[in-house]
C-alpha cells in the first residue's frame, strides 16, 4: 500500500473511531476506572516523592546546616585540618551525642539527643524557640552562662517526660543547666538520623563543662561550612582529597543534605510505584474484559463494515484508536486524581517530614504514569482487538462458543513488545534494579500461576462429578461455561489479594519480631560511653542489683573502612545490601576470643596471645557482599589513624538475639592502645529494669542508657508508618481487583437474567436460582482466596526467611481474614449483579426476545 493510501486508511480509521465514540463511554466505565486508579497511584506516589526530593534539594543547605558538612567521630579536627577548613569559608562547629539528662526536681532521667552549638549556629535557616523571656532574645543568649548556669533549649516532649518546665534545672553529665526555652523548629534536624530521645541544645562551652567529652566517647564533631564564593562544592571535595587525604572524615554536601531520608523516600517510592503498577496490571484485566465485551457488542457493526469492504486492518485501527483515546482520557483523569492524592497525603506527612511537603508540578512522574497507563491498556487490548480482526464476518455471530482464533504473529509480537516495554520501564526507571526486577518477575510468575489456576478451575469444573444437588451442579458448571467470569475473577482478585497477603504477612512478621517477639534472651539495656576507669565499678554496681544478670561488655570504637585491598572504598563495587558497611563510621571492637553469638565459618580465630600484624574478623554476609575473603585487606580509619588489617576469618552472626556484635572485630594487640570507651548490655526482669536504670544513671551520669524496648518502639513506629503507606497502596490493587470483578459480573448480567428466566420457565424457584448463584460465587471466592493466600504466604515466607533472613512467624488470622474478605467481596458483588435476575418476570423477557 502506498503511503498516501496508508494515511487515507488512517484518517478513515480516525473518522470512524470518533464516530463510534459518539455513543459515549457506556461499557467502558470499568476500563476507564481501572486506568484512573492505577495511573493515579503511580502519579500520586511519583509526584509526592519527587516533590519531597525536590524539597530536600532546594532546602539542602538549611537541612545540612551548611554548603558542606564535615564529620568526624570521637575526635575533633586537628589544628591543621581546622586551618584548612577555615580557608574554604566560614566554619560553624557543633557536636552531637546521645546523653542522659536528669531532672533534679523530679529525680527522673532519660536519654536525649544532645547537640552542642557554637555562636555561628545555624549558618543557614533559623532555629525557632519559645521562652518566657523577651521574644527578641537570641537563642545564643539563652544558652550562655548566666549567673553560673548554662542554658538549655529542649524539645517539648522532654518537659513532659521529665515533668519539668522552663526555668527548672537539668543535669547533664556533671553539669547543672537551666531550661530556658522550648525548641519549635530545628533547621538541620533531618540530617541527624534516627532519634532515640528528645533534642537538647546547649552551647559548646557547656558541653565541655559536662565532662562527657572523654577519649573514645561516641561523639560526633560536625564542621559546617558556608563556602567562599570562589569555592564550589566540587572544588572543596577535590581539594579535600588532595590536601587532607588522611583525615578520615565524612563529607556531605547540600546537594543531598539528608542522604538517609532521600534514600528512604526513593526506596519507598520505588516499592509503592511497583505496587501501583500491580494495581494497573490488575486493572489491565478489566481493560481486556471491557474491550472484549465492547467488541462482542460491536459484532454486527464489524460484520456489516466487513461486508461493505472494510479491511481487517482498518477494523483493528478503528477500535485500537478508540482504546487509545479512552486510555488517554483515563490516564489524564488518573494524573489529576494522583496529584490530588499527593496533595492530601502531603498534609498527613507534614509533621513526619523534615522539609515542607509542598507538592509541585513534577513532569517526570506524570509522564511515567501516563506511559504506564497507555502501555497497560495496549497490552491488554491488543489480544481481543486482534482476534476480532481475524474473525471472519460470518462467524462473528457465534462468538460465544466459536473456536477461539489466535491473533496473527504480528499482533502476538506487538503484545510481547508492549510487555517488554512495560517491564523495561518498571526496571530501568528505578535505582534498585535488582529489587525491581525481582518484584516484576514475582508479579509475572504469580500472574501466570493465577492464569493457569483459572484455567485449571474451569477444567476441573468441566470434568467434576455431576453432583445430585442441582444448585451445586449448576454452580460448578457455571464456573466453566463459555464467557464465565472465572478466569477474570481468579486473575484480578487473585493478584490483588496475593499482594495484599504478602504485604500483610511481611508487615505482620516484622511487627511481631520488633514489638512482640523480643527474643527471650535479649538484653534489657545497652549502656554506651563507659570509660575504662568506670568499667569495674559499672559492672560491680550492675551485678549487685537483684534481678539483673548477664552483664556483658566489650570495647567500643568507631571506624570507617577507607580502602578494600588498597582500593579506595568509594571505588569498590559492593552489593546494595552491604553498602551500609562502607557508608560511614561503623562500630568496631577488638577481642581475644570469638564473640558468644557468632561462629567462625571460614578461617581461624587468632590465638589469645596474638602479637603479630593487624588481623580482622569480618561478618560473612559483609564479606560476600564486598566480594572479599580470607587474606584480603581492609584499611580502617580509627580515630584518624589508618589501620590496614588482613582478614583472618569470617563469622556468621546471629543478629536476632540483639546481643552485642560487630561487623568488624580486630585482634586485641592492634587496637587495645587506642582511646576508646566500652559498650555493655544487661538483662533484667521488669522490676529490676527500673532499679537498674535508676542506679546506673544516678551513679554514672556520663553513661548513656538505651532501653531496648523503647528503641524497638521507635523502630516499630517507623515500620507502622511505612506499612500504612504500603497497605494503602496495596489496597488500591484490591480495589482494582474488585472493579474488575464487578465489571466481569456486570458483563454477565444479561446472560444471568436470561438464564434465570429460562430456569424459571423450566420450574426452578427463586430459591433454587439464588442457591446456585450463592454457591457459584462462594466457590469462586474461596478458591481465589486460597490460591492468593498460598501464593502470598510463599512470597512473604521467601522475603522473610531468604531475603531478610529472619525467623518466620505464622499469622493464621491474617490469612484467614483475607479468605473471609475475599469470599464476602465475591459474594457481595456477584449477588449484587445477579439480584435483579432473581426478581425478573418471565413473560416480559421472553416477549422481548
Amino acid at each position, binding site marked *: 500500500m502506498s503511503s498516501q493510501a496508508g494515511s487515507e486508511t488512517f484518517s478513515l480509521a480516525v473518522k470512524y473511531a470518533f464516530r463510534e465514540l459518539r455513543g459515549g463511554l457506556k461499557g467502558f466505565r470499568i476500563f476507564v476506572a481501572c486506568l484512573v486508579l492505577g495511573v493515579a497511584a503511580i502519579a500520586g506516589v511519583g509526584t509526592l516523592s519527587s516533590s519531597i526530593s525536590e524539597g530536600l534539594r532546594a532546602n539542602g543547605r538549611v537541612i545540612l546546616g551548611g554548603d558542606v558538612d564535615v564529620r568526624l567521630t570521637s575526635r575533633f579536627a586537628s589544628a591543621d585540618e581546622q586551618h584548612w577548613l577555615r580557608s574554604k569559608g566560614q566554619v560553624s562547629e557543633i557536636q552531637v551525642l546521645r546523653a542522659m539528662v536528669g531532672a533534679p526536681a523530679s529525680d527522673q532521667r532519660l536519654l536525649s539527643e544532645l547537640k552542642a552549638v557554637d555562636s555561628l549556629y545555624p549558618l543557614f535557616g533559623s532555629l525557632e524557640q519559645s521562652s518566657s523571656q523577651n521574644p527578641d532574645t537570641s537563642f545564643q543568649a539563652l544558652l550562655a552562662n548566666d549567673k553560673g548556669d548554662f542554658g538549655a533549649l529542649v524539645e517539648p516532649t522532654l518537659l513532659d517526660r521529665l515533668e519539668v518546665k522552663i526555668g527548672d534545672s537539668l543535669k547533664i553529665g556533671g553539669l547543672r543547666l537551666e531550661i530556658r526555652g522550648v525548641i519549635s523548629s530545628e533547621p538541620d534536624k533531618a540530617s541527624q538520623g534516627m532519634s532515640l530521645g528528645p533534642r537538647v541544645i546547649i552551647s559548646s562551652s557547656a558541653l565541655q563543662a559536662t565532662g562527657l567529652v572523654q577519649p573514645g566517647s561516641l561523639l560526633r564533631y560536625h564542621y559546617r561550612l558556608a563556602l567562599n564564593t570562589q569555592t564550589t562544592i566540587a572544588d572543596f571535595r577535590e581539594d579535600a582529597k588532595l590536601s587532607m587525604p588522611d583525615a578520615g572524615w565524612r563529607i556531605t554536601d547540600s546537594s543531598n543534605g539528608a542522604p538517609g531520608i532521600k534514600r528512604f523516600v526513593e526506596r519507598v517510592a520505588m516499592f509503592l510505584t511497583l505496587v501501583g503498577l500491580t494495581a494497573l496490571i490488575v486493572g489491565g484485566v478489566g481493560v481486556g474484559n471491557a474491550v472484549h465485551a465492547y467488541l462482542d457488542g460491536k459484532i454486527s457493526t464489524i460484520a456489516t463494515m466487513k461486508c461493505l469492504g472494510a479491511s481487517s486492518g482498518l477494523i483493528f485501527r478503528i477500535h485500537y484508536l478508540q482504546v487509545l483515546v479512552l486510555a488517554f482520557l483515563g490516564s489524564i483523569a488518573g494524573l489529576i486524581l494522583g496529584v490530588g492524592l499527593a496533595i492530601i497525603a502531603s498534609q498527613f506527612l507534614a509533621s513526619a517530614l523534615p522539609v515542607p511537603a509542598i507538592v509541585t508540578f513534577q513532569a517526570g512522574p506524570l509522564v511515567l504514569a501516563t506511559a504506564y497507563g497507555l502501555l497497560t491498556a495496549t497490552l491488554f487490548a491488543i489480544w481481543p482487538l486482534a482476534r476480532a480482526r481475524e474473525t471472519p464476518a460470518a462467524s462473528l455471530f457465534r462468538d460465544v462458543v466459536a473456536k477461539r482464533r489466535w491473533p496473527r504473529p504480528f499482533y502476538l509480537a506487538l503484545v510481547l513488545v508492549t510487555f517488554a516495554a512495560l517491564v523495561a520501564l518498571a526496571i530501568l526507571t528505578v535505582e534498585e534494579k535488582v529489587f525491581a526486577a525481582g518484584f516484576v518477575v514475582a508479579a509475572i510468575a504469580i500472574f501466570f500461576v493465577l492464569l493457569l489456576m483459572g484455567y485449571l478451575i474451569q477444567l476441573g469444573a468441566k470434568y467434576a462429578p455431576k453432583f445430585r444437588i442441582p444448585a451445586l451442579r449448576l454452580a460448578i458448571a457455571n464456573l466453566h461455561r463459555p464467557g464465565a467470569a472465572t478466569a477474570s475473577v481468579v486473575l484480578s482478585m487473585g493478584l490483588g489479594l496475593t499482594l495484599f497477603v504478602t504485604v500483610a504477612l511481611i508487615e505482620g512478621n516484622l511487627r511481631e519480631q520488633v514489638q512482640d517477639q523480643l527474643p527471650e534472651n535479649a538484653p534489657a539495656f545497652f549502656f554506651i560511653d563507659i570509660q575504662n576507669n568506670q568499667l569495674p565499678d559499672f559492672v560491680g554496681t550492675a551485678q549487685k542489683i537483684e534481678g539483673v544478670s548477664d552483664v556483658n561488655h566489650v570495647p567500643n570504637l568507631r571506624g570507617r573502612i577507607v580502602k578494600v585491598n588498597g582500593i579506595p572504598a568509594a571505588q569498590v563495587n559492593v552489593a546494595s545490601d552491604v553498602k551500609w558497611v562502607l557508608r560511614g563510621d561503623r562500630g568496631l571492637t577488638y577481642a581475644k576470643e570469638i564473640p558468644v553469638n557468632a561462629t567462625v565459618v571460614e578461617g581461624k580465630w587468632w590465638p589469645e596471645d596474638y602479637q603479630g600484624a593487624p588481623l580482622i574478623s569480618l561478618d560473612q554476609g559483609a564479606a560476600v557482599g564486598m566480594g572479599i575473603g580470607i587474606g584480603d585487606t581492609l584499611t580502617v580509619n580509627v580515630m584518624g589513624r589508618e589501620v590496614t588489617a588482613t582478614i583472618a576469618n569470617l563469622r556468621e552472626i546471629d543478629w536476632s538475639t540483639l546481643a552485642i556484635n560487630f561487623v568488624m572485630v580486630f585482634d586485641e594487640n592492634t587496637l587495645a592502645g587506642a582511646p576508646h570507651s566500652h559498650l555493655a548490655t544487661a538483662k533484667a526482669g521488669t522490676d529490676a529494669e527500673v532499679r537498674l536504670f535508676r542506679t546506673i544513671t544516678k551513679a554514672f551520669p556520663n553513661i548513656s542508657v538505651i532501653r531496648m524496648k523503647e528503641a524497638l518502639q521507635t523502630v516499630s513506629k517507623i515500620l507502622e508508618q511505612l506499612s500504612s503507606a504500603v497497605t494503602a497502596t496495596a489496597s488500591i490493587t484490591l480495589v482494582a481487583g474488585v472493579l474488575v470483578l464487578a465489571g466481569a459480573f456486570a458483563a454477565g448480567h444479561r*446472560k444471568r437474567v436470561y438464564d434465570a428466566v429460562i430456569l424459571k420457565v423450566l420450574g426452578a424457584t427463586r430459591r433454587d436460582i439464588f442457591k446456585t448463584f450463592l454457591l457459584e460465587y462462594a466457590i469462586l471466592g474461596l478458591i481465589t482466596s486460597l490460591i492468593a493466600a498460598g501464593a502470598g504466604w510463599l512470597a512473604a515466607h521467601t522475603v522473610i526467611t531468604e531475603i531478610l533472613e529472619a525467623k518466620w512467624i505464622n499469622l493464621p488470622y491474617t490469612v484467614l481474614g483475607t479468605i473471609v474478605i475475599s469470599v464476602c467481596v465475591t459474594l457481595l458483588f456477584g449477588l449484587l449483579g445477579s439480584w435483579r435476575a432473581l426478581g425478573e418476570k418471565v413473560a416480559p423477557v421472553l416477549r422481548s426476545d
Partner: protein
Amino acid sequence: MPQSPIVNLKSVSLTLKSDAGPVNILRGIDMSINAGETVGIVGPSGSGKSTLMSIMAGLERPSGGQVSVAGNSLETLSEDDLARFRRDNVGIVFQSFHLIPTMTALENVAIPLELSGRADAFAVAAEKLKSVGLGERSSHYPSQLSGGEQQRVALARAVCTEPKILLADEPTGNLDGATGELIIDLMFQLHDAHDTTLVLITHDDELARKCDRVIRVEDGRVTELDRQDAPELEGHEL
C-alpha cells in the same frame, strides 16, 4: 366416561399498560381442554395466541378470571409455586427455542430433571436426546447446532419429565418446511406415546388440522372451528 378438563379458563382477561394507554390482549376467554387432547390454536399475529399459552403455563398472570391447569388454580399460586407447577406439569417449546447458550445440549435437557431431583437426570436426558435423533450432539452448545437441531433439543427438554401438558408456541416458525415437519412428527409421536395433552400454537393451517380441535384467537377472543374447515369456517363462541 366423560373426559375431565385438564385446562379450564373462565372469563380470563389480560390488559397490559402501554405509553399509549391500556391494551386489552385477552378479553374474557372461556375455554377448556381435556386431558390427552391435541388442540391447535390459530389466529393472526398479535391476536393473543402466545399470551393465552403463557397464561396456561403460568408465565403470565391474567388481569381477571380463573385459570385451572392440572388441578391447580394458577391465579392463587406465588411465583415460586408457579415454577414448581411448571416443573411438575408442563413442558414448553418456544418458537425461538430458548436454550441456555452456555450449556451443552445434554445440560439443557437435564435441567428440568435436575430441578425435579432426579438422580438419573443425565441418563434420562441422554435418552431423550437420542430419541430426537441428537444422541451424537449432546456435548454441543446451542450455537453449534442448526435451528432444527436446537428445536429438537428444546423438544427433548420439554418432554423429558413426561409432563401432563405440552405447550408449543409456533414450534416450526423458525424452521424450514422439512425440518418443521420432523419436529411436528416428533411431537405427535411423543403425544401418542405418553398420552400427553398437546396445545399447539401455529400459523400453519395444515398443522392445526392434525389436532383433535382447532381454536381461533382473534382480537383477544376465542372461537372453536370445525377441524376439517379450519381456519376458513366461522366458528361459534365456546
